[in-house]
């Protein structure tokens, strides 16, 4: 091992020497360094506004180049992450009209191109994403933002630093949605005569990073925006290089050979080897789960007892072992650190109880058809995990028939919903539980029945429906928190999913990387990081 370390050390120093000489000419100053990130994305996320590649796109590109009105607080690893002011310094609900939100905009913010940020920019950005008649309308951004615009109706300017957004229905949690919608520079777009492809190669936002170099499909190089409005978040490294590396073994190889110094989602099997080579492995709980989303219209899972049986059948500790400790058991929708976790019913492993429930429900053997993908964003290690799931379900009396498909085919099933795929009893789609609407309301509320929303299996129950409605119309944060807790507990009582694990999102960092704080969030703040030469 020492021999290997020695070689690696040499390889690393050689690689850094090369990188340093190649990328940072004479003006290199102490401290900073170049952070080179291996992302799991298959391509560089889109740079012309809201990115693709899921939340990873927002994590590394969207929130680096741009800001949204609302920002996620990513500065702590030991407490749940919530929203804080971003380009808007504060927001409040119109006391008489609960469908009208007032956002007070930050003063003195400048775009990367030097133009000042004002209310007109915000109005213009919403046109870009929604108004097909406006010159700045961009089809791609229209598409990418559809999920965030469900409740957006119109926007108006109150003064240079205040805007009002009207929503279609009353939604007390609306500001969360605004945290995903990033603002791009009207100035730059107008200079480029709305050539969005040109904009994508020379983007201009208000974010903590500027784009320095963009090689399509291969790399995006960002440098600190020294004029960033939040002086605490001016990046401490000299440069951040983003590389797409969808294959796990490729990312490991790149880290070991010194090609990169920050790797997303190293495969659990490689973690001992990485630790042996002196790499830092960081992980933290965050609002993600890896469940089965169920069919409530046809098949065995319409019976609550069968759903409970499936949940009792799983020994989740085995999954954690399988994943080398990079996950925690999931007994309810949210991870236990969530403020609205409450005291949900926990279906801890109980094979006898599961078998008894199946017998009671008269489903023996209980034939179920499950759809799963071979890979995909947030899907963790779908093949081994589903093999384990199958063996545990079959041990109590289920008979599992897998439909194995690629990620896009699974997305198609998830989008079309239970009406089109009535023979599928459940599908394995990992979920981002970042904001309470996506986490708790969408999976159970009738308004989100597929294909219009993400209540894939058309779940309905009077109690959850009432609680969900109450949450959306409750503007008092404390009362709303109590209601959210209640909904979380109700979902557990109905066993609305088969819960398996929460990912801990492991990352592997070179020993030269300092200052990274892994927040309890899908998003991460890269600005405090420094890299030794």
């Amino acid at each position, binding site marked *: 091992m020492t021999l290997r370390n020695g070689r*690696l050390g040499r390889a690393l120093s050689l690689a850094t020497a090369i990188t340093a000489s190649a990328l940072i000419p004479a003006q290199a100053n102490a401290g900073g360094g170049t952070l080179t990130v291996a992302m799991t994305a298959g391509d560089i996320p889109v740079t012309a506004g809201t990115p693709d590649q899921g939340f990873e796109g927002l994590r590394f590109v969207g929130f680096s180049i741009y800001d949204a009105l609302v920002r996620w607080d990513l500065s702590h690893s030991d407490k749940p992450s919530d929203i804080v002011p971003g380009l808007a310094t504060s927001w409040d609900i119109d006391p008489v009209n609960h469908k009208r939100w007032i956002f007070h905009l930050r003063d003195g913010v400048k775009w990367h191109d030097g133009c000042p940020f004002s209310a007109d920019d915000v109005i213009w950005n919403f046109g870009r994403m929604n108004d097909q008649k406006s010159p700045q309308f961009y089809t791609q951004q229209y598409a990418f933002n559809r999920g965030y615009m469900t409740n957006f109706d119109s926007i108006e300017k109150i003064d240079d630093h205040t805007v009002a957004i009207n929503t279609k229905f009353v939604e007390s949690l609306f500001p969360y949605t605004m945290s995903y919608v990033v603002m791009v520079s009207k100035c730059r777009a107008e200079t480029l005569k709305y050539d969005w492809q040109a904009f994508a190669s020379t983007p201009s936002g208000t974010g903590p990073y500027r784009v320095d170099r963009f090689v399509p499909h291969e790399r995006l190089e960002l440098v600190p925006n020294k004029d960033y409005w939040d002086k605490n978040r001016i990046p401490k490294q000299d440069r951040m290089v983003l590389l797409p590396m969808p294959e796990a073994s490729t990312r490991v190889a790149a880290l070991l050979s010194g090609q990169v110094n920050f790797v997303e989602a190293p495969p659990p099997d490689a973690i001992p080897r990485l630790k042996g080579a002196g790499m830092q492995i960081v992980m933290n709980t965050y609002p993600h789960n890896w469940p089965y989303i169920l069919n409530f219209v046809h098949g065995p899972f319409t019976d609550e007892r069968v759903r409970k049986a499936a949940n009792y059948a799983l020994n989740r500790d085995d999954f954690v072992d399988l994943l080398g400790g990079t996950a925690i058991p999931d007994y309810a929708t949210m991870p236990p650190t969530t403020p609205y976790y409450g005291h949900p019913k926990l279906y801890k492993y109980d094979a006898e109880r599961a078998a008894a429930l199946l017998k009671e429900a008269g489903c023996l053997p209980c034939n179920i058809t499950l759809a799963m993908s071979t890979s995909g964003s947030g899907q963790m290690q779908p093949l081994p995990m589903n093999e384990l799931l199958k063996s545990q379900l079959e041990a109590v009396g289920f008979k599992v028939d897998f439909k194995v498909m690629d990620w896009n085919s699974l997305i198609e099933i998830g989008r079309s919903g239970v009406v089109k795929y009535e023979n599928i009893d459940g599908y394995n789609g990992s979920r981002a539980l970042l904001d309470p609407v996506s986490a708790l309301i969408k999976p159970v509320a009738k308004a989100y029945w597929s294909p219009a929303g993400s209540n894939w299996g058309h779940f309905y129950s009077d109690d959850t429906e009432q609680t969900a409605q109450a949450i959306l119309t409750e503007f008092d944060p404390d009362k709303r928190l109590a209601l959210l807790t209640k909904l979380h507990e109700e979902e557990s009582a109905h066993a609305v999913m088969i819960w398996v694990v929460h990912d801990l999102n492991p990352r592997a960092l070179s020993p030269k990387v300092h200052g990274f704080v892994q927040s309890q969030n899908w998003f991460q703040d890269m600005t405090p990081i420094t890299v030794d030469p």
Partner: protein
Amino acid sequence: MLTLVGRRILYAIPIAIGVSIVCFSLVYLAPGDPLQLLLPPDAPADAVAMIKHAYGFDRPIPVQYVLWLWRVLHGDFGVSIATRRPVLLEVSGSLYNTCMLTLFAVPIAFVIGYSFGAIAGCFPGKWIDRVVTGTAVMGVSLPNYWVGIVLVIAFSVEIIALPATGMGRGGSAGFNPLVWADAQYMILPVITLAMVPIGILARSTRAAVAEVQGLDFVTTLRAKGLSESAVIRHVLKNAMAPVLAVMGLQFGYLMGGSILIETVFTWPGSGFLLSKSIINRDIPVLQGAILVLAMIFVATNLCVDLLQAMIDPRIRRA
């Protein structure tokens, strides 16, 4: 000669049209929606309709084909659904990277394959022939992506000597194969890529040399009392043409067939672009990439045909 060129090119046109139809229709076999890449899973129906319209996917497929072909003939392959970059730009950039590999791999394969094939052909039936022929069969039976993995295990995992993936510090922009810092990234993929052509070229060289050996003029040369080395020089020169033809075909073949190796080494070439666009269902890129690669193949075949005809008058009449 000119009529021959004209005839061959005319002959290639209906094939090209057929190829374009195949390329276009292939992607409509695909299950799933090409636009799921763009829209969130819970996008409302009107948004889906609007996007379909904006990308022209709401028209009847034959109409889409004609429009697509018309634009392609004008050099416009459309834009990628995923990146909104012009498909031609995407394809040409990745082709350049693939060329970088093939332009090194094919000559290396030629030199090695030709030398060994020639030695074997000069001593048919001798032990050296058996060794070369045996090795050549191994070469053509190799799953080359496996060779790639084995090389990675040996040189990047067991000993960290060579980088396993990618194009290095700056990516393809500014990649310079003459600088060690960049060139080291090419070594494993080029070796892997050359493996199969070495076998094929060795086999065809051996066959060509053996065939020329049996021709009358060689017997005549020997009868005239020419030294054995001079005879062999003649033989090798005459055997060169068919082997060069095989080499040309190999080039076209590797351009379109490097997808597996580019996947193993995450080399940002045309094969990599292809597999990515299959996974993403990025239809314009998929169509464009397949079309361009097939056209390159058709063109190399055509060139090889014509060159052969120029060298060997017997073919011209056929």
